[in-house]
């Protein structure tokens, strides 16, 4: 598969009152077309910042990010699924999911058809005319995911999308994500602090070091697809999780040390 996202030597330095602070140092990553890459690392390591740089919401201090355009130039390069859902409280679920298409000037009938189709796929079709305050957190995140997929971007960027949900809802949504992704194979960069999530969903797991964040190790997840939650009981899964955790643990300790 050809590369879809090429990030080279990303550097992010914040100016603070006590001098410059390096959040990300010399971080390079190439994601292939149709690949699901998870980034894990201790909290505060700059993984979300990296995602925001790829999304264009933040500016890197040095280095380059390239999202290779597809055959259809009208397609958006990326869309973000935020941990805080970030769906608009004043729009119905239908209008929320159709938002990206609306911004691209697609007519009402066409964009509603696409939005309804995506609401159907995340099981929310009958709630199409509800407002967000009428639905639960798990449903809100489904809407946010549907909004991103309905817009059909080149790359889907997910910033700890299930981080704010309770454990049971999270498991259900992980399976739903697997099902949806395995059906349409979009290029995904997925930030998480859960190793289970990273291994279950990802083709590769990128491990970042504690501040300043840089790439420590990349693990290839050689587990067969389609995957389900039962996978988490297999020996290959447990071995890989242990291997990543040994490496991650050092960074977590360092991060905690630095905070002290």
């Amino acid at each position: 598969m050809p590369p879809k996202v090429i990030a080279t030597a990303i550097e992010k330095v914040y100016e603070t009152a006590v001098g410059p602070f390096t959040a990300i140092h010399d971080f390079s990553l190439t994601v292939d077309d149709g690949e699901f890459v998870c980034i894990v690392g201790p909290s505060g390591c700059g993984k979300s910042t990296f995602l925001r740089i790829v999304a264009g919401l933040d500016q890197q201090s040095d280095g380059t990010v390239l999202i290779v355009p597809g055959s259809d130039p009208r397609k958006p390069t990326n869309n973000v699924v935020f941990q805080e859902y970030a769906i608009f409280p004043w729009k119905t679920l239908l209008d929320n999911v159709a938002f990206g298409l609306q911004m691209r000037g697609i007519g009402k009938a066409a964009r509603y058809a696409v939005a309804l189709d995506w609401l159907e796929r995340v099981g929310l079709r009958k709630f199409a005319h509800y407002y967000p305050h009428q639905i639960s957190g798990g449903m809100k995140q489904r809407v946010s995911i549907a909004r991103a997929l309905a817009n059909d971007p080149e790359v889907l960027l997910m910033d700890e999308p299930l981080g704010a949900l309770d454990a049971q809802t999270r498991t259900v949504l992980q399976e739903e994500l697997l099902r949806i992704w395995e059906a349409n194979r979009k290029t995904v960069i997925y930030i998480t602090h859960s190793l289970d999530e990273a291994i279950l969903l990802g083709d590769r797991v990128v491990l970042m070091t504690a501040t300043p964040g840089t790439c420590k190790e990349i693990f290839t997840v050689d587990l067969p697809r389609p995957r389900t939650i039962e996978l988490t009981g297999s020996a290959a899964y447990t071995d890989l999780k242990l291997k990543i955790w040994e490496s991650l643990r050092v960074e977590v300790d360092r991060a905690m040390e630095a905070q002290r």
Partner: protein
Amino acid sequence: MAVTEIESKKSQASPQQGTDPSLGKSLLGYGSALLLWGLLFWITGSWQTYWWLGLTVIFVLVTVAANRVGRVVPLRHRRRYEQLLAFGFPLLLLIAWEWLVRGGILNARWFPPPTRIAVALYDLTVSYDQFNETSLLGRPWLIPTRLLTEGWPGVAALFAESHVFATLSRVFLGFFIGAVPGIFLGMIMGMNRTVRLMLDTTMSAAYVLPKIAIFPIMMLLFADPFGEGPKVAVVAISAFFLVAINTMVGVRDIDPVLIQAARNYGAKGWQLFYHVIIPGALPVIFAGLRLALGTALIVIVAIEFVRAKKGVGFMTYYYWEILSTEKMYAGLVVVMVLGVLLTYGLQWVEKRAMPWEK
């Protein structure tokens, strides 16, 4: 007399009396405490001097009893119980007032009882003030004949002579002239840091200034100092600052992640404004509009006290000057009714403008 009123209210509000055996007993306790207290005051002749103490204790007892009832009201009667509290309490106040005046404890000259105020209100509605050439509502009894002779413009002309029209037109005109630029400036201040920093201190200073104090300046500025111009201008200025400050806060309070999301999905310029900034700030803008509308009414009544030939404020002050206190109180009642109607009207608009709000 007040005591029996209270008793009947309580039994109405407790539909579940049968299911809670201790409720009847405790209500009986509160009832007898009320009776005993009233009797004690009556025997010792304390009502004349210590009526305020007597009433306070009665109101506290009623509140405790209503609270006791509130604990057992079943869910399906909850709404009726809440309405009873909301309207029963002011009714009790009015009854107490009436009783205090009739009992000769308060002076009827300065505190006419509510029934006489109601009569005065009726008088004002059906009479025409020859001296001021005005009426409260615009001589409604002439509507049928005017409608036949002059049509709807004739009816409108009738209403235009009224005190209520004079006050409402000043309020609406001033509110509109102030609120629209207020929203615009507030939006700009919310979005642009430079403008906000430049104006924030000035706005805060202007905001606390009592707007009635700039009425003389407004009179200097207008060609006709006694006309409508200065009055409307003061109302507009009062509304302007409240709306501008609230709009600014509303824009600033929008969750930044929503703006990031909108940008990420390609919203720019006008799209961002229309789809995110305006709806996001709308709840706080409406809070500002509510404040501004209330303030507009307060300000216009004060101005009409000082300098006007028409208007509810003018009417109220006029009847104070000729010591017709019932009609003065009637004027205050009209102001309160207008305030309630304006608030309800704005709430009606608010519900339709923001269907997503709970």
